């Protein structure tokens, strides 16, 4: 009896693997192969060209990794791109989280037309990033962009938008505000999961709205906050579409030189180096995600017990 149970049922095995075959092949061909290939090439100096088993370029050891710290031409761009990405992440991610949470609190009530209003707030998220980038690129043009004529009309003059290094980042963060609806929808879904009874007992105990939010809503949303934080950080580190369509080549004085924009600009001429940059990004992403998850372990696992 025991033997019969332990015996592998070959038919089940084959059927099971057949079902997941597409993703197994997909991961092998389109993820593992390029990953290994990129890792090997990150130790070579080579332009981007057709894959070949025999030709890898010139072996340079760890040069592609340490030239970020030693050679000015590379290090200046590397650190600038890290700085731009980090500043954007540190300001934008918490700002978006907090504002979208407030929006969700505001919209999480029973009122006439609320569904319509929620959809309305979500609408800008539906604009394709490329359109959004081109829209703001056109609007903020110095010569015939309409944004500054609108600002002049309400008394603000001479905002540099993406034509000056100092105003580029604030402008990008401002543009991001139109996409708050995306995370707002996630918050709303989460808020619905909080049992109403918690608020009722709090009300009976005399807790006001603010205390209810701080003591009930925020802790109940903690797993979601962490999840959102990790996903937003990962997404922010990979910012590309919006910036590429918004400004040309990393913007004025490289003020919009995001990390991936930098990788992308090296890809054709210095493929090996761009692979090394990609792996550095990978390690940064992994390290950050681990730190956030470790830092908030209790909050994250609190629900599962």
């Amino acid at each position, binding site marked *: 009896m025991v033997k019969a149970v332990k015996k592998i049922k070959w038919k089940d095995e084959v059927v099971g693997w057949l079902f997941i075959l597409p993703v197994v092949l*997909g991961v092998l061909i*389109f993820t593992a192969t390029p*990953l290994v290939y990129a890792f090997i090439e990150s130790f070579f100096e080579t332009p981007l060209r057709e894959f070949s088993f025999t030709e890898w370029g010139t072996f340079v050891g760890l040069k592609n990794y340490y030239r970020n710290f030693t050679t000015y031409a590379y290090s200046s761009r590397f650190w600038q791109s890290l700085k731009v990405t980090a500043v954007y992440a540190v300001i934008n991610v918490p700002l978006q989280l907090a504002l979208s949470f407030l929006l969700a609190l505001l919209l999480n009530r029973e009122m006439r037309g609320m569904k319509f*209003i929620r959809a309305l707030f979500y*609408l800008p998220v539906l604009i394709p990033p490329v359109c959004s980038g*081109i829209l703001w690129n056109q609007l903020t043009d110095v010569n015939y962009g309409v944004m500054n004529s609108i600002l002049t009309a309400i008394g603000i003059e001479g905002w540099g938008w993406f034509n000056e290094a100092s105003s580029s980042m604030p402008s990008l963060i401002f543009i991001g505000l139109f996409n708050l609806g995306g995370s707002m929808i996630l918050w709303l*879904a989460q808020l619905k999961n909080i049992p109403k009874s918690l608020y009722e007992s709090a009300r009976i105990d005399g807790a006001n709205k603010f205390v209810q939010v701080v003591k009930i809503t925020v802790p109940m949303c903690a797993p979601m906050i962490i999840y959102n934080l990790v996903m937003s950080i990962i997404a922010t580190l990979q910012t590309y579409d919006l910036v590429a369509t918004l400004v040309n080549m990393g913007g004025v004085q490289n003020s919009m030189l995001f990390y991936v924009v930098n990788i992308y600009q090296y890809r054709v001429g210095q493929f090996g180096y761009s692979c090394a940059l990609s792996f550095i990004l990978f390690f940064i992403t992994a390290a950050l995600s681990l730190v956030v998850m470790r830092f908030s372990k209790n909050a994250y696992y609190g629900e599962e017990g």
Partner: protein
Amino acid sequence: MQAQITMPSRGQKKRQPKEIAARAAKKTGVYVVLLALACFFLFPFFIMVCLSLLTDADVFQQVVFSPSGTIEIGNYLSIFTSGSKYLGYLGNTLIVAVILAVGVPFVSSLCAFGFAKLKFHGRDAVYAIVLATLMIPGVITLIPLYAIYAKFGWLNTLTPLWLPSLFGGGATNIFLMRQFMRGIPNDLLDAAKIDGAHIFRVYFTIALPLCVPIMLYVGYMSFVGAWNNFIGPMTYIDAGSKFSTLALGMYNDYGPVNDTSYANSAMAAGVVMTIPCVALFVFFQKYLIEGVAVTGLKG
């Protein structure tokens, strides 16, 4: 008569109007705030449509509405003239987006069924690896895949934009599908198996119909993902190729690389590219909220 009825309840009545007034004031306040916010969130749409209706001369005046009151629809007409570049972009994008919208839900549900409802060796290890691929920044594989696609002869074709996605449909979609399928009672599947149905038949006739909501969600997300995909075409398709997609074509024609583009024609193209996204959202809204509920459950 009226006085008689209202008099006894004067004590309550005195408080009630105040309460009602306070509540009404609060309600009005909320609506005012919501209205202001709605104006803010509608601004990109509003300005996009306004600019797309300007004449070339008006664009240089830095105005939102034409001072002469003319509404120029020529920007739209030139998009839909037969043989226009834009129609070519639209066709390419539609091919990719439709293939993915149909193929990805099917493929990812197949894999998810294997992960959720079948028992075999190595299942959990493979699933862990699939989920781990979510941690990999896209750019790491994006660029080396250029070299591999060059070997396959896929550069400057639409193939790299859809074929790889049909291998599993992406980790996120498999994850969503698996979460959803775990909710299907095993008894239901076992009953069919006992009746002698082949497991693929069980998947196709019992599991799949139950997964329609999540399949619609995944299909919608795949369509919009393909529609918006920019870095993919940008990497694998040259500027000016007849296989340009909308995102790539818009970038090359109206983006920051092209200083001579006009805001009005750029915005008309933008409006045309945005409309299908909005229309689909309105159409599938119910399922999207359901999908978001699943996504929001657990990371």
